C-alpha cells in the first residue's frame, strides 16, 4: 500500500476509538466511531477480491447504520433533556435505540449476521483488528452509559449471543468464521454482566483481546484458513501446536487457564444478583462453544504419527515470525493464579 495512505489509515484507526473513549459529548463520540469505520474500510478491501469488496460493503453499511442510530438516540436525548453528556442519558427511547445501535456495532445477536461474512472475506490481520480493536469504542460507550441501560434487554442480547455464537460455530470448517462466532459468544458474556459490574466486563474484554490475538497470530503463522489445514500444523510448529490447543481451551473457558477467570467471576456475580437461571443457561450454552474449540484441537492432533493426513505437509518457509505471539500466548494461558491482583488493578 502507498505509505502515505497507510500512515493516514493507521493513524485514523488508532485515533478513532481513542477519540470515542475520551469523549464526553455525543457528537465527538460519534465522530470517533465514524473515523474508525472509515479508516478500516480500505483495509478490509485491500486485496480487491470480489468477496473482500462484498465484506467491505457489508461492514460499511452495518456500521454506518449503527452510527446513524447512535446519533439519532443522542439527538433524541438532547432534544428531551437539553444536554449532550454521554453519562447523563436518561431518556428511555434513547437508551433502547443506543443499545440496539451498539449491538449492531459489536455484532451481538440478533444483529450478528454481518460478522462471519466480513471476517471470512478479509485477511487475517484485518480480521484480528476487527474483532479486537474495533470493539473498544462501542464497549466504552456501553461502559459510560451503563447506569441508564435496560438490564433485561442486555441480558436477552447476551443470552442470544452466547446461543448464536455457540450454535453458529458448531460445524463451521472455516477458521475465520469460527473466530467470528467465538467473538459473538464472548461479547454475549460481556454484555450480560455490564450493568452489574462494568469493571468485570472490562476484565473479560481484556482477557478476550489477549486470547483472540494469540489465536489470530497463530492462524496467521500457520497460513491456514480452514480447520482441515490445521491437520498438518504439527509439522510446521510442534511446540506451538500444543500451545495452540491450550489457547483454544482458554478461549473455551476451561480451568486452570486464563479464560476461566472471566467466566467464573461473571457466574459468581450473576449468582450474587440472584440470576441463577441465567447463570445456568450461560454456562450450558458455553458448552456449544467448547465443542467447536475442542474440534479444532482434535483436528490439530488426530494426524500425529502414525495416522496419515489428507493434506500435503506444508513447506516450512523462512521463519514468518510473530513477535507478539509469545507474550500473548503466555498471558492467555497463565493468568488465572493472579486473579486477585487483576481484580484489584481494575
Amino acid at each position: 500500500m502507498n505509505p502515505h495512505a497507510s500512515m493516514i489509515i493507521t493513524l485514523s484507526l488508532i485515533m478513532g476509538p481513542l477519540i470515542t473513549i475520551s469523549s464526553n459529548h455525543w457528537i465527538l463520540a460519534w465522530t470517533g466511531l465514524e473515523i474508525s469505520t472509515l479508516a478500516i474500510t480500505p483495509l478490509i478491501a485491500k486485496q480487491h477480491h470480489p468477496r473482500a469488496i462484498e465484506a467491505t460493503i457489508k461492514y460499511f453499511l452495518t456500521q454506518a447504520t449503527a452510527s446513524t442510530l447512535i446519533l439519532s438516540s443522542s439527538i433524541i436525548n438532547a432534544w428531551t433533556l437539553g444536554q449532550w453528556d454521554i453519562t447523563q442519558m436518561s431518556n428511555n427511547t434513547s437508551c433502547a435505540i443506543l443499545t440496539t445501535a451498539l449491538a449492531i456495532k459489536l455484532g451481538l445477536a440478533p444483529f450478528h449476521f454481518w460478522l462471519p461474512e466480513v471476517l471470512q472475506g478479509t485477511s487475517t490481520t484485518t480480521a484480528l483488528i476487527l474483532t479486537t480493536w474495533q470493539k473498544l469504542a462501542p464497549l466504552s460507550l456501553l461502559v459510560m452509559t451503563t447506569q441508564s441501560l435496560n438490564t433485561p434487554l442486555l441480558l436477552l442480547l447476551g443470552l442470544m449471543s452466547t446461543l448464536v455464537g455457540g450454535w453458529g460455530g458448531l460445524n463451521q470448517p472455516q477458521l475465520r468464521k469460527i473466530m467470528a462466532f467465538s467473538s459473538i459468544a464472548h461479547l454475549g458474556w460481556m454484555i450480560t454482566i455490564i450493568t452489574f459490574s462494568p469493571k468485570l466486563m472490562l476484565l473479560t474484554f481484556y482477557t478476550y483481546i489477549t486470547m483472540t490475538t494469540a489465536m489470530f497470530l497463530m492462524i496467521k503463522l500457520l497460513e491456514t484458513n480452514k480447520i482441515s489445514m490445521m491437520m498438518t500444523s504439527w509439522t510446521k510448529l510442534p511446540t506451538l501446536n500444543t500451545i495452540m490447543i491450550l489457547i483454544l481451551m482458554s478461549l473455551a473457558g476451561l480451568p486452570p487457564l486464563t479464560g476461566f477467570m472471566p467466566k467464573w467471576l461473571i457466574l459468581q456475580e450473576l449468582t450474587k444478583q440472584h440470576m441463577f437461571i441465567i447463570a445456568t443457561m450461560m454456562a450450558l450454552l458455553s458448552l456449544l462453544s467448547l465443542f467447536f474449540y475442542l474440534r479444532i484441537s482434535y483436528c490439530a492432533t488426530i494426524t500425529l504419527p502414525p495416522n496419515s493426513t489428507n493434506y500435503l505437509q506444508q513447506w516450512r518457509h523462512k521463519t514468518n515470525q510473530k513477535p507478539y505471539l509469545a507474550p500473548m500466548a503466555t498471558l492467555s494461558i497463565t493468568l488465572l493464579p493472579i486473579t486477585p491482583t487483576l481484580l484489584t488493578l481494575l
Partner: protein
Amino acid sequence: MALSFKLLDSVFLSSRCHRQNALHPLLGPLLTDCISKLYSSYRRPGTSPDNTPPWKMNFSFEKGVDGIKKHFGLLKKELVDHWKGPEGYRLEEYFLEQTRVVCEFRSQKELDEWVVSSDAEIGGKSEAYLKLGKNNQTALLYGTLNTEVPRDGETGYSGYCAMRTKLPKGAFDTKKYYDWSNFNSLYLRIRGDGRPWMINIYTNPYFSHQKDDLYNYFMFTRGGPYWQEIKIPFSKFFLSSRGRIQDDQHPLWLDKISTVGFTLGDKVDGPFQLEIDFIGLLNDRAHTEEFAYEKYERNPKV
C-alpha cells in the same frame, strides 16, 4: 416477510405464465430469489416492456399452505444438518474425503435440477434439449446451433446454448451455497463431439453489482466413442462479467459456490451432442498452483 413474498410469488407465476410461456420454465429458476421475480429484469430484446400492474393476481390458498409446509420442512432439515456436520456430512467424512461426486444423472429428478437454455430466448434458431442417456446412466445434451442473428434491431450475435444447475435454495428461498474448499479440481467424465465448451461457475454474490461475475474455463472435447476424463483445477478459472474477461483477475473462492454450467458458442452451425456421466470434485495432491493468472500489479508506479 419472506413468507408473504413466497405467497405472492406463487401468485405471480400463475399470472405471468400466459405471457412468457416459452421463457418461464427457462427463466424462472435463473432468477435469484422470489423478491426479484417482482422486479423481473429480463426483457426479451425487441419486445415492449411488461406493464402488468402488480395488483393483478390470482390468489391461491393451497399453494400458500403447501409452501409453508415445504419451507418449514426445509428449515428443520437445515437445523438438523447443521447439528450433524458441515453441510450435512459427518465431520470425519468431510475432512477425510478426497473426491466427491456432485452431479450424477440416474433419474429425471436429477435432470430437473438443470436448466437448459439457448438463444431461442432472444429469438434465435438454436435448439437444445436434455435427456437421460442409455440405461439412465448419463445425461445427453443435444441440439442444433444456428448462428443466424434474430432480426429485432438490437441483437448483434447469436448461436449459443447452455446448461446450468438451478440456484440452490434453502428454507424460505434463502441463498444456499456449496463449500468445496476441501477440493482443488473439477473432474468431469464426458463424451463430446469435438466441440469446445466453456464451464461456468457462479458464486451468487450478495450484492447486485457483482451479480454477473462468473468464473469460466474451457473444456475441449475429443469426440469419438471413448469417454473423456477431464480434470480442471480451480486455479485455472478466470473471472469474467457479462461475457467480458476482467482485467483485475482474482482466484475462485471455493467456500461459496452456487451453480456450475456448460456453454457452447463456437460460432459453428450444426448439431452438437454432449454426454455427461458425472461431475465430481477432486483434491489433486499434485496440483500446487494457487492461481494461474497474474497476481502482481501490472502497472506498478515506478
